[in-house]
């Protein structure tokens, strides 16, 4: 049993490493295939041909692509992700990440927590009141939430809660490392903007999974045995319904990362998503590589965690 679990973890980790390498390679070659030159951003459009050549030589950009990729992998394995070429010249990518990754992770986790809380309440309420007013309202809001892009929701939230009611700052984010309460306050609107579309789809999944499970045979058996309704709901309905729910949460994490990219720009969060946009436009290859790898690892890790949770919820999946 323990051995099987260990073997499972080892194979999964090896798989993650392989996927990460493949993903890094795809991003690497796709970025290099795109036209543009970091030298133009770093040195300006007036730079002479010699200056550009010197720049390229300094950063090994004149080497064959496969050599460059090899260098990147070799350095990355040693934990050296290089230095920014064109958007923060000379700064260690590692240092940039140390400042920004906590912000992105904070917003991401905050958003998931909000989405899960909202959907647990709304989904359960809708399922328990199937066909009733609460159900209609919750499902309508969910349908609307799925159809609205997060950046639009972001602006709506800014207008309503920051500019209108003045409850939250309209712009800017205080890092959780500086002030946890400041981060909770300034991160609420951006997290909610990211959470809203997710909460909508979670709610729908949870609602239908609850309803589906409520009509299963084992529930009827449990009822006939005279178990309490709360007991049946928690142990026979909710528990089974959580499996698709948790799976969907895992799937949504990649959209979550896409969402942070846009939302970070709108709310001025100094995170990895906004860094990636700047880096991509400035052709700052080392930063793009590092961002892509980070996002990839997060998605893969979340998938593993989701699998583990599902296995815990349903021992048959082992």
């Amino acid at each position: 049993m323990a051995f099987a679990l260990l073997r499972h973890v080892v194979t999964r980790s090896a798989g993650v490493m392989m996927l990460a390498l493949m993903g890094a390679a795809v991003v690497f070659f796709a970025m290099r295939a795109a036209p543009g030159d970091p030298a133009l951003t770093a040195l300006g459009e007036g730079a002479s041909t010699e200056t550009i050549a010197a720049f390229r030589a300094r950063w090994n950009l004149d080497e064959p692509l496969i050599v460059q990729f090899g260098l990147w992998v070799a350095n990355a394995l040693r934990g050296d992700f290089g230095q920014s070429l064109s958007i923060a010249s000379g700064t260690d990518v590692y240092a940039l990440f140390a400042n920004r990754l906590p912000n992105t992770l904070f917003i991401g986790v905050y958003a998931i927590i909000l989405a899960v809380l909202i959907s647990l309440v709304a989904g359960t309420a809708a399922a328990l009141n199937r066909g009733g007013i609460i159900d209609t309202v919750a499902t309508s809001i969910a349908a609307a939430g799925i159809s609205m892009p997060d950046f639009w929701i972001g602006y709506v939230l800014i207008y309503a809660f920051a500019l209108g009611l003045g409850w939250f700052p309209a712009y800017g984010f205080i890092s959780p490392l500086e002030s946890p309460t400041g981060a909770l306050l300034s991160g609420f609107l951006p997290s909610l903007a990211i959470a809203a579309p997710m909460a909508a789809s979670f709610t729908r999944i949870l609602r239908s999974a609850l309803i589906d499970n409520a009509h299963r045979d084992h529930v009827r058996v449990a009822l006939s045995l005279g178990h309490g309704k709360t007991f049946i709901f928690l142990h026979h309905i909710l528990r089974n319904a959580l499996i698709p729910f948790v799976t969907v949460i895992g799937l949504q994490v990649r959209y979550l990362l896409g969402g942070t990219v846009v939302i970070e720009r709108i709310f001025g969060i100094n995170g990895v998503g906004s860094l990636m946009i700047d880096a991509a436009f400035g052709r700052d290859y080392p930063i793009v590589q590092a961002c892509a790898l980070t996002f990839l690892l997060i998605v893969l890790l979340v998938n593993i965690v989701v699998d583990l949770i599902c296995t815990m919820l349903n021992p048959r999946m082992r």
Partner: protein
Amino acid sequence: MDALTLNRRQALSLVAAAATLPISFRAQAQSTTSQSPASLLRAAITGYTVINTFDPAKVTQLPESYVVWAVFNALVKFNEKMEIVPDLAESYSFIDPTTLEFKLRKGVKFHDGSDLTSDDVKFSLERVLDEKTASPNRAKLSSIKTIETPDAHTVRIITQAPFAPLLTYLANTRTGTQIVPRKAVEALGSKFDLNPVGTGAYVLKEWKTGSGVKLEAFPDYFDGAPKIQTVTMPLIGEESSGLTALQGGQIDLTSTAPFASIPNLVKDPKIKVYKQTGLNVRYIGLNGRKAPFDDPHFRRALAMAFDRQAMVRSVVFGEGSPATGLLPPAIAKPGQPVPPSLTFNPAAAKAELAKSKYPADTEIKLLIWGPTWWRKIGEFFVIQVNQVLGTKIQIEAGESNAVFGRLRSGDYQAAVWGWLGFIDADEYLGDLLGKDGSRNFHGYNNPAFEALLEKGRSEVDPAVRRDVYREAELMMLEDMPLIPCFNSNVHNLSVPGLKGFTQLPYSNYGDQFAKLQLG
């Protein structure tokens, strides 16, 4: 189970706590927003996020200049009428057509406490000229033969030939000629990039990559200590976010504004809008080395086949002026009629196309890039020109870095492009269309035009120079190597209480901080 259930009292207190949460949030939000004492100015850099250096010689990005303008001074600067006036210099004069002499102010201190001398001036300019510095502005100073320093407060710049634009290039703009201290630069080496030492009203205190800049007043500033002690300059990538930050009370001043919002904002009493036609030009760049744009008839036909006024209305919501030449109004000869080649005239455009050796349906790809309004320039142009002339111009979308790369290498037929921040007429006509112009991506080479450029460069009388450039402009509009579209407005937004901000058409910024007051 019991542990999870709440009694009624507990449940009620929980609900009450939840209800007070927004109120406590609100109190916190207000405590951060209402706290803008007059000693702090929050001057956001909007629309940009990249800062690589604060070394004037190496600056390439506009936000870098915003900061450099506050931290450094140049020999001369522009006043509110866009006239050149002394800054670190006390006075200047042309001793002869190739010798420009500056008398320096006495008692000017750098941030490290050292005195400004003529040697620092010589060092600063020679540094831009030095290949090793890799300054993007090297070519601007290449007319300089030698720099003499007869005494500690006199600098003589001797050029190979009379070169009128030099004075513009020595002003505190984007030409990298701000004065740096020799000692500090030599001591710091490449660390000077992020640890600038200048003579300016503000000292750089902090730079957080991608996040923002913090400046502190320089008490020994030669023009008197600034009124506002601290200036923070957060980098806000989205212009619309800059606007909400201003409306939400998180900032006091922006460096740009979204065009679409201006018509409403000018009516808003809670926001002060500064605007005027900027020193910039938006155009359709043509590649004169490739069919069909190697034929001037084809080029002229396109130039007359769209309505610039309508373009300004639909692309930048009226926030601009239709082009009347290649030079923006702030530096063009005033009161000139719009040349026929820049006037919307379908009949003349069709007649011109009929004279071309290429048929209307020649395959043409117009490169467009960027977000929103930049993109719309190309879309508007293609829709109207195709409709008027029956051409089959197609759009190819890229992004700025990629499109610029193709412009440079000549791998394009037509592309939407533009420049901002050029101040001297020679930067527009000479750089963009001179045969050796560093931004001549159009293959334009006209000896008569070159002769006029030469004449303009050697003429030191501003009025005569202006006439020469008008003549050159009319000549180039006859050939139409690129199609000028419009000059967009430059904008700043501030809170109503901000006093003393003078907006110049080249989007100046940091040079104003010392004069500002927040009341």
